[in-house]
């Protein structure tokens, strides 16, 4: 079997075919590990009516804020949209955006389950709160749990420190966050990286995301990554 070329020549080429209405996961937390090049590429590309799965909803025009400013997003699943998510908050208050708030660890676990082929799971988080409302509840070994559904997407946009040409990834410090989980939970995962290196040059013991989860690789620009 020949190896499919995963490295795309430009950011714009890597996001060119994202259709209107797609659901996309975006990695990143606290300013670290956001796929900002891909986000800016998607802003230029102009896809609309997007569904977003992300911890938060941008800071001003930064990170996902740009896509909210451009009114490209209509549905959000997030743990902490954030007080700095100016454009999201305006559109949410105006009733223009559909939001599902999810506890952060459950957001992780729902994506992890999807990537691992688990359709749903029982969780103690949110029992007796509005998060548990309307969800199936069960007592297991004397404790209450609610049923949480696995969460997948059409695309995952992730950021890594280094990739080899097959798509094996390593991350840097706390910029890892949601990126490895999302890479497993989408039909197609696109990674922007600080550096693309020759296949075989990454230590196999340190690879965090194995190549099987990666469909497209593109070189990021900007000074953040060495």
């Amino acid at each position: 079997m020949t190896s499919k070329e995963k490295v795309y020549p430009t950011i714009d080429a890597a996001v060119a075919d994202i259709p209107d209405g797609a659901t996309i996961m975006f990695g990143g937390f606290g300013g670290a590990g956001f796929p900002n090049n891909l986000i800016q590429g998607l802003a230029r590309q102009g896809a609309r009516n997007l569904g977003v799965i992300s911890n938060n909803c941008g800071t001003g025009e930064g990170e996902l804020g740009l896509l909210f400013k451009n009114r490209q997003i209509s549905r959000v699943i997030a743990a902490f949209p954030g007080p700095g998510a100016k454009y999201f908050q305006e559109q949410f208050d105006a009733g223009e955006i559909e939001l599902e708030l999810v506890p952060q660890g459950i957001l992780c676990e729902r994506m992890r389950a999807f990537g691992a082929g688990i359709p749903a799971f029982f969780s103690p988080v949110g029992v007796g709160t509005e998060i548990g409302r309307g969800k199936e509840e069960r007592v297991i070994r004397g404790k209450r749990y609610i049923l949480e559904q696995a969460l997948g997407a059409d695309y995952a946009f992730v950021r890594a420190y280094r990739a080899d040409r097959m798509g094996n990834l390593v991350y840097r410090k706390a910029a890892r966050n949601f990126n490895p989980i999302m890479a497993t939970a989408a039909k197609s995962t696109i990674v922007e990286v600080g550096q693309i290196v020759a296949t075989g040059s990454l230590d196999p013991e340190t690879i965090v995301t194995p190549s099987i989860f990666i469909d497209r690789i593109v070189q990021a620009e900007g000074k953040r990554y060495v």
Partner: protein
Amino acid sequence: MSKARLTREQIAERAAMELPDGAYVNLGWGIPNLIAAYVPPEVTVHFHSENGILGMGPRAKAGEEDFDLVDAMKVPVTLLPGGSYFSQDDAHVMTRGGHLDICILGGLQVSERGDLANWRVPGAKGAGGIGGAMDISVGAQKLIVTMEHSAKDGSPKIVTTCSYPLTAIDCVDTIITDLAVIDVTPDGLVLREVAPGFTPEEVQELTEPKLRYSAKVPEMRLQRR
């Protein structure tokens, strides 16, 4: 009542005394974020951050910030020797899975039976946000809430039943406020300490549910007084 309640820093200082040597600890937003500065030098505590850091050190010095190494409040921090990085799901394996010894969160309301409300004020503008608080509250081996004893309008924040949206039920072990240290027990709330100059009766007056206390309730101890 014109006596001085404790400051936010003093609440943090008292809370730091609850951290035993060797504990793995997560600190939330608000007053909990002030606690790390008060851990005594003879005590080693391993700080966890839900964005994938264990062994988190102090805030990075000006000019030495690495924006790939930030805490849950986006502040550039450092990593101590023996520290590690991991993904957000592993970070929550640690929270929800019961691996953290002590978690300290801020609170809007705590109920008599230890329910916590800390993520949304009803009627507030905006979407609100849960973040990691629900996973942390459910999983912590010991959950301490640090907060002011009274809301801005003077109403009690320790209540019979929370009226604000809940973070988790039956999760709080200890409440440390600017007036008292209170333990949540199967028999109800037990007043363990009062702020210097305050009587148990004065604390009870500002607390909705009934407090249990002995004839002599000691004053809150602070390290640097």
